């Protein structure tokens, strides 16, 4: 097979509209929505775990004189997950827009040994897969809450919690790739892109 011949990068077409960070605005949107996706997902699972282990914790809350209900914990698990599923569509959409405009610094290998294109592909495909799993888990959680375990004290299956904890690990790794795109490959970071273009930061970013 003939090797791929690289043409002029198509991002040149938009160069006039983009700032030094490669975006038409100063601060990227995707990393901010990520706060919401990760925070909501982690706390949703954490509170379902708290609800599942309620018989163990009961005494602690009595000691703290903090009135709690098991159903209240599972409410947090449910509503936070629903919010997470909704927000995450926007997280992925913003991520794709900003990744299409990404110009990683050349010649960099990340601290886990990947190059920029590998990192972006893994982060992009991984992001869609994680969104799929979050949506599937929300549907699964809904069935448990409103049908299968409607009248039970423990509203979630152990398997659900296990899958949730598994996704913590995946999200951790996935987030590391995203963090490396910024802090190592300099994607959408004004100072890094200016330095790569040979600018003097004392003048360019006083």
């Amino acid at each position, binding site marked *: 097979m003939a090797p791929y011949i690289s043409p002029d990068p198509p991002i040149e077409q938009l160069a006039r509209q983009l700032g030094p960070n490669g975006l038409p605005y100063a601060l990227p949107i995707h990393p901010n929505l990520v706060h919401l996706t990760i925070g909501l997902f982690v706390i949703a699972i954490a*509170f379902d775990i708290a609800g599942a282990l309620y018989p163990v914790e009961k005494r602690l809350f009595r000691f703290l004189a903090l009135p709690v209900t098991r159903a209240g914990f599972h409410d947090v698990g449910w509503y936070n997950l629903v919010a997470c599923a909704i927000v995450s569509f926007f997280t992925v959409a913003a991520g794709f827009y900003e990744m299409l405009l990404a110009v990683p610094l050349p010649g960099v290998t990340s601290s886990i040994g990947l190059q920029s294109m590998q990192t972006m592909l893994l982060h992009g495909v991984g992001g869609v897969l994680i969104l799929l799993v979050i949506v599937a888990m929300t549907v699964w959680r809904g069935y448990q809450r409103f049908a299968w375990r409607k009248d039970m004290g423990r509203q979630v299956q152990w398997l659900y919690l296990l899958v949730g904890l598994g996704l913590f690990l995946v999200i951790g790794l996935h987030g590391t790739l995203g963090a490396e795109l910024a802090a190592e490959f300099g994607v959408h970071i004004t100072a890094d892109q200016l330095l790569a273009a040979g600018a003097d930061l004392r003048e360019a970013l006083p």
Partner: protein
Amino acid sequence: MNHGLTRFMLEPLPLPFAPHLPFAPLLAELLPALNDHNLPWMDTIHPIVVHFVIAMGLISFVFDLIGVLFRRGKLFEVSFWNLLFATAAIFVAIIFGQVEAGLANPYGASSEILNLHSTIGWSLAGVLSLMSGWRYVIRSRDPQQIPLSFLGAGALLSALIVVQVTLGNQLIWVYGLHTVPVVQAMRDGLV
């Protein structure tokens, strides 16, 4: 460039903390050396911890708002726990924030931004703690109701969080503090 940390950073094998202290050699043995992010750990931890302050703080207000507008008292329990979690998380965020700010070597206007970000960060810890206490009392009296004044406070809290996030965003996305190219430029004396 008259920053104490910058000076030691230019040495060939940077120590994690100020080398002029008498116990510096001991510290150097106990603490890992700084990496290419100028951190003793792999990557910045503060932006990870703040997931929980930002997400839980904002969603607490959103659920309160939906609860009031659509008369869903059940949601007030959800926002209570989210608020409590945001409050617990901000203290962890401040601890890592202070350590990483101390190693950030801000330059140009980012020094002022970092000062403001630190001040608002500590203030947010106070605001969140007060609101958690207030909310605890409200919940003890009637878990199905919240007064409009609390909703107003939640709106102010959300605005404060948005301002704080914007400042933090500028430190990383504009000034690139703790990113490899900026740390390298500092060590080369270019910033």
